[in-house]
């Protein structure tokens, strides 16, 4: 049979999910890097340096960070454009969905709506964050970041970003599992229930981790508020200077 | 008014109607199906048990063939059936099931190896043959010698109806849903379509057709308690009756099932009692042993039903807001058994009664289940009184069930008869008789009459309430023309129904909406239902014997001497208050299986002298053919193959020949 099937719907759907998956993986990893501050300023600096490639090339290349941020930015853009197709596209659709959701009291439906809202927020929050990283790749570090967060008032944005990113990522991961099968394979309600519990646990974990890190940055930034601009020196250096 | 022209008009979208439509359409005739509801919601979907066909695949069915299916069916009918038609039916049933298998019905299959079954409460192990693995299997059903009821898990009718409907969609047969035929257009003994009411808009339109086929299912809803869907009001049979030409037959033959849950009438399986469940009365007393010391709860369907009603009549029923009932107790079977073997029952109890049958009692009462009677047809499915009118399925009295149908034989009838009648409709359309000459004046005359009748309801200053009268009719039928019948009560019922029919002409509607007005629907259906009810009641009154499901306690014996007859009813004039009954004799001397003992139930019946004569004749004929096989024997006794369409005549292949 010689037929031309339009394979784009399949590709786009796959791409939407893959971009989402990549972003989830990134966001979750990102949390561990970011929370290195909990282990101390040195640990965070080490991670920063790693991203700048200092551990591999001997000297920092902040452009590397820009590059990563750029890729993520592209991913987010791709994902957002693909996901945008699913947004209610008219007031009528929006209205009908709202009516539907409010009547139904069905957690998965509400969860999707949460994803739409958080996705919409992420559109702005994530871009702002990524833009900062993109244009000031060298401006990351224990003090630089803390100053931005506290004195630059970025903490408000970060708190929002944290919340929406993790609700969105957690729900997204759960949806991916249900959508493509691994979790719906067994078809058992119990499996789905477990998965959902896992989702909330993961979201909770990252929110706590994120909140703790953010608090630490804020504390550092507060303590450091009079020395804005000063860069952090690794403690090994400090010892030598004394 | 809109007039729609088509070759074939099939009224009814159940299994029977759709199969007949497919047959006619495949022969090149434009066919339209009408249905009160979307076709897939027809009551055929409710059949759970199975469809009988002698495939002989599974162990319990080994050795089965058309002959045994024939005998079971005739015995079941208490010799009321048309034996030639039963032959046609049993011969084509395996073909029907194989056709459905090819069309997509996921029939349950034989699984090789050991299986555990329960017989009389005892566990047994049987082992299915390798050779049968993957072929269509069957289950055991009451009144059959073999395991012959083919099934699809617990949804036989559903799966069959969906496959059939999908096939009809594939063939491009339009189903006009929510359309109700309210009258047949006819002139000089020739039917030429129907007047139809659109149930969504209230609009009246006409369908003009060369051939019209009634496939509207049963009329269980003339009873208060019925296992039937609430749309089973027998309108097809009623509009045929109202032509004054077409005859209905054996209307008094109505089957009851002992355990409909109360008050809704939803069926719970016989398995409850089979596995040891008990029937209790208002005092918690187990009453069946008082009446039937030997078989107790496990006496046959009709006997148990009768005893239950008798006990309620004696004042021992449980009173509730909806009337009286008895209890079914399966608590003693234990939760484990109920969860494993009676899952459906458990779910019905959960969903419809909100009770846990492992802890609580189930309210039950016998309920009407099946109508053996209907539009009388010849073996081709054509009405005897009205040319161009055909009937098929439960709405018809093609007559394979006589006075009692076997479980599983009715969905089988729908598809088998559908196959046969579809062909004969096509033959008819192709023949010279097929063409019609209908003037729009005639069509309009019939339409006007309907419009007029409907208008009368909305205009009239009557005093009667349609819902109340309907309830009274149902009450009368259930209490007086039910399981136990008695001359006096039947006479009362006839009088009451006569009175209700008069009152029904004086109905007042509270709501004047002309569109989809449910009260108006009840109002115009009521007189028609009353006419059917009257056919049942009067038929039962006049039949002074007991046969099959028709039980007269004042005439408890089957009387072959006087009643080897089929009841025919016509409603000659619209103004008549009663149907005119006549009788069509069943010729014993042409029977393949002359009347005798059924092998169960009462043994004392009044024999007809011809029965013995015919038996002797049969023995003689068989004796002259020592080398012949069963097919030759059969052909010598009662040839029937020529009545089947040619493509349904070949023999049926089976795994092994017996």
């Amino acid at each position: 049979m010689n037929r031309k099937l339009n394979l784009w719907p399949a590709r786009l759907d796959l791409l939407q999910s893959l971009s989402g998956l990549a972003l989830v993986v990134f966001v979750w990893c990102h949390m561990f890097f970011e929370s290195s501050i909990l282990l101390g300023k040195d640990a965070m600096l080490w991670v920063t340096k790693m991203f700048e490639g200092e551990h591999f090339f001997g000297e920092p290349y902040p452009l590397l960070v820009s590059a990563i941020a750029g890729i993520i930015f592209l991913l987010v853009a791709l994902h957002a454009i693909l996901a945008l197709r699913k947004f209610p596209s008219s007031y009528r659709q929006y209205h009908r969905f709202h009516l539907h959701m409010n009547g139904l009291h069905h957690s998965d439906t509400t969860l999707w709506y949460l994803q739409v809202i958080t996705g919409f927020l992420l559109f702005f929050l994530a871009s702002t964050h990524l833009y900062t990283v993109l244009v000031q790749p060298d401006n990351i570090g224990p003090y630089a970041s803390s100053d931005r967060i506290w004195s630059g008032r970025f903490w408000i944005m970060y708190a929002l970003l944290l919340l929406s990113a993790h609700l969105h990522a957690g729900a997204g991961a759960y949806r991916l599992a249900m959508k493509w099968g691994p979790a719906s394979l067994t078809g058992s309600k119990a499996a789905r229930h477990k998965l959902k519990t896992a989702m909330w646990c993961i979201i909770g974990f990252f929110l706590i981790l994120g909140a703790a890190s953010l608090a630490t940055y804020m504390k550092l930034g507060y303590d450091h508020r009079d020395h804005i601009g000063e860069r952090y020196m690794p403690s090994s250096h400090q010892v030598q200077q004394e | 008014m809109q007039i729609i022209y088509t070759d074939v008009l099939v009224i009814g979208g159940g299994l029977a109607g759709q199969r007949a439509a497919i047959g006619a359409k495949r022969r090149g005739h434009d066919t339209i199906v009408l249905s009160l509801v979307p076709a897939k919601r027809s009551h055929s979907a409710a059949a759970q048990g199975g469809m009988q066909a002698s495939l002989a695949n599974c162990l319990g069915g080994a050795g089965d063939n058309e002959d045994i299916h024939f005998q079971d069916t005739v015995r079941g009918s208490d010799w009321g059936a048309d034996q030639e038609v039963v032959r046609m039916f049993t011969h084509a049933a395996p073909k029907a099931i194989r056709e459905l298998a090819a069309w997509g019905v996921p029939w349950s299959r034989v699984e090789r190896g050991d299986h555990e079954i329960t017989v009389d409460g005892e566990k047994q192990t049987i082992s299915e043959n390798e050779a049968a693995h993957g072929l269509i299997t069957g289950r055991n059903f009451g009144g059959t010698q073999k395991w012959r009821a083919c099934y699809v898990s617990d949804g036989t009718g559903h799966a069959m109806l969906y496959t059939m409907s999908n096939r009809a969609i594939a063939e491009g047969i339009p189903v006009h849903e929510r359309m109700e035929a309210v009258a047949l257009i006819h002139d000089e003994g020739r039917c030429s379509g129907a007047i139809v009411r659109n149930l969504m808009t209230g609009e009246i339109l006409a369908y003009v057709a060369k051939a019209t086929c009634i496939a509207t299912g049963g009329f269980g809803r003339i009873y208060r308690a019925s296992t039937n869907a609430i749309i089973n009001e027998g309108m097809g049979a009623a509009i045929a009756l109202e032509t004054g030409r077409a005859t209905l037959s054996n209307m008094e033959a109505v089957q009851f099932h002992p355990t409909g849950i109360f008050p809704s009438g939803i069926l719970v399986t016989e398995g409850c009692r089979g596995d040891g469940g008990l029937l209790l009365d208002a005092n918690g007393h187990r009453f069946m042993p008082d009446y039937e010391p030997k078989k107790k709860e496990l006496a046959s369907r009709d006997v148990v039903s009768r005893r239950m009603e008798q006990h309620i009549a004696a004042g021992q029923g449980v009173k509730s807001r909806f009337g009286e009932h008895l209890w079914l107790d399966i608590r003693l079977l234990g939760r484990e058994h109920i969860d494993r073997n009676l899952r459906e029952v458990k779910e019905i109890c959960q969903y419809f009664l909100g009770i846990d049958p492992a802890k609580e009692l189930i309210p039950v009462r016998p309920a009407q289940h099946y109508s053996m009677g209907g539009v009388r047809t010849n073996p081709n499915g054509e009405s005897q009184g009205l040319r161009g009118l055909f009937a098929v399925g439960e709405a018809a009295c093609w007559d394979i069930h006589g006075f009692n149908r076997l479980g599983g034989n009715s969905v089988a009838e729908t598809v088998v008869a559908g196959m046969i009648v579809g062909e004969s409709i096509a033959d008819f359309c192709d023949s010279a008789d097929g063409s019609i000459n209908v003037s729009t004046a005639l069509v309009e005359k019939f339409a006007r009459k309907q419009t007029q009748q409907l208008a009368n309801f909305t205009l009239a200053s009557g005093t009667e309430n349609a819902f109340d009268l309907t309830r009274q009719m149902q009450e009368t039928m259930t209490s007086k023309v039910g399981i136990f019948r008695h001359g006096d009560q039947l006479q009362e019922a006839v009088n009451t129904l006569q009175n209700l029919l008069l009152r029904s002409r004086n109905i007042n509607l509270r709501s004047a909406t002309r569109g989809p007005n449910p009260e108006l629907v009840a109002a115009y259906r009521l007189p028609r239902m009353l006419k059917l009810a009257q056919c049942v009641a009067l038929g039962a009154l006049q039949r002074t014997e007991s046969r099959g499901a028709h039980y007269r306690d004042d005439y408890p014996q089957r009387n072959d001497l006087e009643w080897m007859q089929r009841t025919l009813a016509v409603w000659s004039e619209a103004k008549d208050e009663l149907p005119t009954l006549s009788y069509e004799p069943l010729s014993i001397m042409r029977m393949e299986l002359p009347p005798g003992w059924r092998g169960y139930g009462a043994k004392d019946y009044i024999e007809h002298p011809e029965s013995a004569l015919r038996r002797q004749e049969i023995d003689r004929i068989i004796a002259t053919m020592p080398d012949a096989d069963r097919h030759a024997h059969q052909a010598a006794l009662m040839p029937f193959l020529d009545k089947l369409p040619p493509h349904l005549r070949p023999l049926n292949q089976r795994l092994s020949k017996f």
Partner: protein
Amino acid sequence: MNNIPLAEEHRMLQIQILRHNPSALLCDSDKGSHLQTFEVEEALGMTLFIALNEIREEQDPSLQFDFVCRAGICGSCGMIINGRPGLACRTLTKDLPDVIVLAPLPGFELIGDLSVNTGKWMRGMSEHLETWVHNQELEEINIDVIEERMEPRLAEQIYELERCIECGCCIAACGTTQMREEFVGAAGLNQIARFRLDPRDKRSDADYYELIGNDAGVFGCMTLLGCEDMCPKNLPLATQIAFLRRRMAMTTG
């Protein structure tokens, strides 16, 4: 027998019904859609089927709703019961609060009050997805000979998917169908899964892709799982949709 209830004590139920009769617009005075409250005394074992009929017979003879089998078999009586779609005939009032709000299933053409044209929708879906066995040889099947074999297990699996009663609850429970009318819904996707499983249907994945390989088909589903959670027949809809999604994403033409 101490557990046989004799005297009964009953609640008074407030049944609020969303009334609207589109066809009455043409002839009678139409009040538009409005919520009307009826009071019904509850009885032992009362279902919404019983309650609604009581209302029609005793209070408002013009009330429209659909019941056919009244036994949870035919799929006629899907409606929104306190916000959620379900089969009215098998919903017991005792499982509901004192106030019961009933509305017609959204997403279908409204006939009047609680009656919607699910039949038309389903027939359209069937025609569109061609929900029948496709087999060239079907014309010449020989019904005199022993039928083709099928593994017993497979027959059961097909039946599991065949159990859909086209009630429309999954359509009403699905946010996607609420927003996008062209979406075939879980009922439609389940049909494809059913025929795909059936060896008698000779269609290939490419054939199926043509039917559902787009945003009105399987890729339109946003995995909201309302269908799975509200199907009265408990069909494994999520599993089937995920399965189809994988197969369709792997189809190459």
